[in-house]
């Protein structure tokens, strides 16, 4: 009988956590918007966006270069080096851009968000805001949430563009694929709505999930050093799993059914 009771208790706890996370998201989304929030959001855009630029650009460049190298060796067997452009571009725009950006974002910015909010809680800064009659959801959570939502699609676009340039660097400048065919076959194959816009939609969904998990884990963390380190780890693990799982669902919805 004991395990039934435990299952029940576990389920109730899960439901309660989901409820708290939902309430927090609701609070952050609909916290009375004010002009004071815009500079705060810009500041967070710097923290989560600009400070993630370096890792995004370097990763995008190398992933594009590696794909060109791998793709070239395979395609050249069939005499189809001309298809290198679309191969690199489609993989980046549809999958790697949004997914790798989201994973890097979870590791770089998500963990930092969790740790920051967790520490603000541990050092009583959140309580202190409440006692100063300032809603921490509006002052602390909302700007970070919106900054994440804005920054991630931007980073994903930059990632894909840099990757395509990296593919050009290796494929065209180094391995000698014809530059004209690299671009023109890419242009003939890549579709604006189906590939570019769907990639942006994917990264918006990932942005929502990763930022939400990161902020909630910080907000709901146990305010001790152990609790915060645990919350930070959970942010990276949960958001990576959520991104990969959701990516399959989104891909099935977008590309699976014609």
């Amino acid at each position, binding site marked *: 009988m004991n395990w039934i009771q435990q299952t029940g208790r576990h389920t109730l706890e899960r439901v309660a956590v989901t409820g708290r996370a939902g309430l927090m998201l609701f609070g952050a989304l609909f916290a009375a918007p004010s002009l004071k929030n815009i500079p705060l959001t810009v500041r967070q855009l710097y923290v989560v966006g600009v400070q993630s630029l370096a890792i995004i650009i370097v990763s995008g460049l190398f992933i594009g270069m590696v794909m060109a190298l791998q793709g070239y060796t395979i395609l050249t067997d069939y005499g189809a080096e001309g298809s290198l452009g679309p191969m690199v571009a489609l993989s980046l725009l549809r999958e790697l851009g949004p997914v790798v950006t989201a994973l890097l974002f979870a590791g770089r910015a998500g963990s930092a968000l969790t740790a920051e909010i967790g520490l603000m809680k541990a050092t*009583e800064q959140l309580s202190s805001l409440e006692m100063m*009659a300032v809603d921490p959801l509006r002052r602390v959570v909302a700007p970070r949430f919106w900054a994440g939502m804005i920054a991630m699609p931007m980073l994903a676009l930059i990632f894909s563009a840099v990757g395509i340039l990296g593919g050009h660097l290796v494929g065209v400048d180094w391995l000698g694929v014809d530059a004209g065919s690299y671009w023109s076959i890419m242009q003939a194959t890549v579709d604006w709505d189906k590939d570019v816009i769907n990639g942006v939609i994917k990264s918006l969904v990932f942005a929502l999930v990763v930022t939400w998990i990161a902020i909630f884990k910080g907000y709901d963390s146990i305010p001790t050093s152990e609790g915060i380190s645990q919350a930070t780890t959970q942010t990276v693990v949960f958001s990576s799993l959520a991104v990969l799982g959701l990516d399959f669902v989104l891909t099935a919805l977008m590309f699976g059914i014609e």
Partner: protein
Amino acid sequence: MQSNMDYLVDVKNMTFSRGERVIYDGISLRVPKGKITAVMGPSGIGKTTLLKLIGGQLIPDGGDITFDGESIPAMSRKALYHNRRRMSMLFQSGALFTDMTVFDNVAFPLREHTKLSESIIATIVALKLQAVGLRGAAQMMPSELSGGMARRAALARAIALDPDLIMYDEPFAGQDPISMGVLVKLIRELNDALNLTSIVVTHDVTEVLTIADYIYILADQRVIGEGTAEQIKGSDSELVQQFLHGKADGPVPFHYPADDLRAAFLGESD
């Protein structure tokens, strides 16, 4: 009705528990206006919890807490936020915002809650910092301050909006004797100069006895002694005396409850 006028905070028969653990069981205490009230007790009996209950961050399970005659647990969120502008809390860690300078920290409540121009805010902040002796440190970051200075900066922030009530959570914990002396002086002076009402939660006996107008001693989820400093010193309660003089053993036992030592070591059971 007279009592409502004299007491700013009135805790009536309040019960609060966290999970299975009962923290307060029908506790009552009153905070007179314009005075410094000290709440003392051993560590870990939820003195900070009491302040959070008064601030409306926690809701009691039973009983009532009133602030200036209005019930805090019954307030709407909006009314609560409105009333919180009249109270202020100095956290144990100071809780300064680590991403802002001292100046911006003190200016924060003014910028959030008033529409004053930046030049007026700068003047007010300078005055508040002057009051705690930190005007020269306005452009420093909280990480550059010593513990005592951080607490004074937080105090300047706490009085920025000229509140009616200020709650100090363990203001003396972990301070060197000089900082402690400075804080004692500040609490007393600010209270008299700004016509504040202060609640000081602490377990530092000597400091409190010098400044508090009225003292409550808590233990075992209830009030075990109350009165002015003189009355407390003359109390015949063993528990109060043990606490005041820091005796190792007494009504609060030295040993955490355990089974008999002889039985545990020699395996005798009878």
